[in-house]
């Protein structure tokens, strides 16, 4: 089995979950990703994603070298590593190398920079904390119901992680054609904004209060799309039927409504004239039966709707297992699971080669195999405290 990126070497000087995850996506698809775990490595302690489980996900399939860049010998090792690398990923923590320094040493290098708020602008130096970026993105106040506290969704940083990998690939593509390296910039603000694309773009174009303040679920623009209705047993059904003409007969059938009811017999009546009345009618209909009933009749008619599930469902969902979205952690005597691989490739599937490394686990291996150091030289470097 070949890997998509088996000919790519990435140096990873990140500490935040999302930036490590961006490099981790490259590792999952076969790049040789080497964490540089210098003594100066630091994390944004306090972040909810600063747990061993997150570290495990973001750093699986990577190697780790531990190098003290403050020693001359250590510096030399780092420079030789850079000379062998295609990509350098930094989130501003750990070993600090600016692009000018690295590109002088290796002009073909792709230098990926993960920041909080982008490389330009007055707030470019703020710490890369996803909550701070989400707070600036404008969605937090409008996610909940009216009168409720703002909501942090937590997913913004994941857009940034995938963007990092995508940006690196785009820059590598350009390098193949020209031999020219460059800087790739992604940020938490950019990722969060992209996740908010549709609300944001609609606000930019048309503005208005419905994009600035929460809209009650009982005042939804389309009673049949993006809506939530409680079931008899306290769970929730959600509908996405934007083209209501297509779905109305099926929805009416499962909710016991008359599909020819004159109040609701056109898209305009359902979504404009009698919108609130339809919401109220559906609210009362869904409350008469439990979630299991709704799941079953939705499936029978192949409607665009589902019951809201929780993480227990995901952990045991055969569909998630079958597609390797969720895996067993594969530690002896351990029932733990982990997120797997969200992207399928028929010829170069993502694979689990090794668990996240401890600092310096692969120092000798990398020095020997990638840089051609002899055993004696490696021993001398250890003795000098340049590597560990």
């Amino acid at each position, binding site marked *: 089995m070949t890997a998509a990126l088996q000919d790519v070497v990435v140096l990873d000087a990140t500490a935040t979950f999302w930036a490590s995850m961006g490099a981790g996506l490259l590792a999952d698809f076969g790049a040789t990703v080497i964490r540089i775990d210098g003594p100066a490595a630091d994390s944004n302690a306090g972040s*909810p994603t600063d747990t061993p489980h997150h570290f495990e996900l973001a750093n699986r399939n990577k190697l780790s070298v531990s190098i003290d860049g403050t020693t001359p010998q250590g510096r030399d090792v780092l420079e030789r590593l850079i000379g062998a690398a295609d990509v350098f990923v930094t989130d501003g923590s750990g070993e600090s190398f600016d692009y000018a320094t690295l590109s002088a040493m290796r002009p073909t290098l792709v230098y990926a920079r993960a920041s909080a708020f982008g490389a330009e602008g007055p707030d470019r130096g703020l710490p890369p904390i996803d909550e701070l970026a989400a*707070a600036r993105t404008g969605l937090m106040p409008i996610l909940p119901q009216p009168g409720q506290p703002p909501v942090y969704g937590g997913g913004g940083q994941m857009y940034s992680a995938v963007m990092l990998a*995508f940006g690196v690939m*785009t820059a590598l*593509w350009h390098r193949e054609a020209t031999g020219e390296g*460059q800087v790739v910039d992604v940020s938490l603000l*950019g990722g969060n904004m992209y996740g908010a694309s549709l609300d944001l773009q609609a606000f930019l174009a048309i503005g208005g209060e419905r994009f600035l303040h929460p809209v009650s679920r009982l005042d939804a623009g389309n009673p049949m799309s993006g809506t939530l209705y409680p079931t008899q047993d306290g769970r929730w059904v959600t509908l996405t039927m934007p083209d209501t003409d297509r779905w109305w007969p099926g929805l009416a059938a499962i909710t016991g409504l008359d599909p020819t009811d004159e109040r609701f017999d056109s898209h305009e009546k359902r979504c404009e004239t009698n919108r609130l009345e339809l919401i109220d009618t559906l609210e009362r209909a869904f409350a008469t039966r439990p979630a299991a009933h709704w799941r079953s009749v939705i499936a029978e008619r192949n409607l665009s709707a589902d019951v809201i599930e929780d993480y227990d469902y995901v952990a045991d969902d055969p569909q998630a297992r079958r597609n390797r979205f*969720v895996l067993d952690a594969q530690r002896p005597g351990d029932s733990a699971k982990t*997120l797997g691989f969200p992207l*399928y490739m028929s010829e170069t599937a993502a694979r689990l080669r090794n668990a996240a490394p401890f600092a310096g686990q692969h120092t000798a291996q990398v020095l020997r195999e990638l840089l051609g150091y002899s055993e004696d030289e490696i021993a001398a470097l250890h003795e000098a405290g340049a590597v560990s």
Partner: protein
Amino acid sequence: VTLPLEGIRVLDLTVWFQGPVAGQHLADFGAEVIHVERTQGGDLGRGVRTIKAVPVGDWNQYFLVINRNKKSLAVDLNKPSGREIMTRLVETSDVFLTNVGEDNLAKWELTYERLREVNPRLVYALCSGYGQYGGVSKPSFDMTVQALTGIMSRLGEPGQPPIYLGMGSGDAIGGLFAALGIMLALWHRRSSGRGQLINASLYGAQLFLAAPTLQAFLAAGDQSYARQQSRTAAANPLWNTYPTVDRWVYLCLANTDDNWSKLCASIDGAELAQDPRFASAALRREHAQELIALLDARLQQGGASEWLERCRACGITASVIGNLAELAEDPQAWANDYFVKTHCEEVQREVVVRGLPVGLSKTPGSVRSLGPELGQHTEEILVETLGYTWEQIGELKEQGAIL
């Protein structure tokens, strides 16, 4: 200025958001992306009239922004001559990108099994709902798939309805994974000489969107990650949202004694700093509810701007929780090209669109045009790319195979 993906041709047979936005990422960086649309009405996204019950106004930003930098080919794939056009395009393309249903792909002779025969170098990118395997084929829209990931049911205060992460939030991550997958497959093709099938599903991508909490749940089984948690009982009161007189703020501090004393200084909380209930990280965790209640009361004595000024002075990390209007004016977003101004043909004026979240220093992406008119490039593609004669084009039009 050269664009990094110039020379890559993408057939983009997609509708709505997840598929089209994958093509948009490639088009922003210069790929030739041909949005293939049905002759009657085109991409369903062209039909969007309202968003959140607000009329879209004089330009359909939903469609035009997602399909920027693309060409439009209007073709009837139910006609043999329409399918012939697609076959010839597949022969000359690098990527086939789609999020239409499998039944249509089969009917239109556009399955992976067939197209890999037509062009073995083709990267075939499928944006599915539930993944490559398992046979689940129910309708898959963003929110109905997000419903299954569990992320909705853990957000908000206890007892509140589930919370959706925002319009298109799942399509957006699904589209990004498709764009990444295409680049990975193109990269591998350099050495293998062969294309492959990639499948970026909404379900897989949205489970990844949930990773910040789902990973900890899967690994540790801790139910607190799966359930709604009140902000009034946050485990670390120093990492929490707080209301002020006018707006909410987000405080993001590790629960250390140093941060605690800085926070107390910023709110003139000498008595809090002395309070033995909060004298250590463990005690602050133990008495979190009391502490949050006290901070709630204290912060509601002033406005957000004033308090943040004090935070800055004390070296504390915090932010106002802004709205979209504030973001639209945020100099930080503008400085990094996260907004871009561009000309809109439809209304003949400059409009602001979401910009370029991935920055490349030497070969930046750009917004060169907004979404095309339906079939705007049909003749150009048929003549220049495929070598059809004008006479043949006349016949195709008569048959209704093209617009």
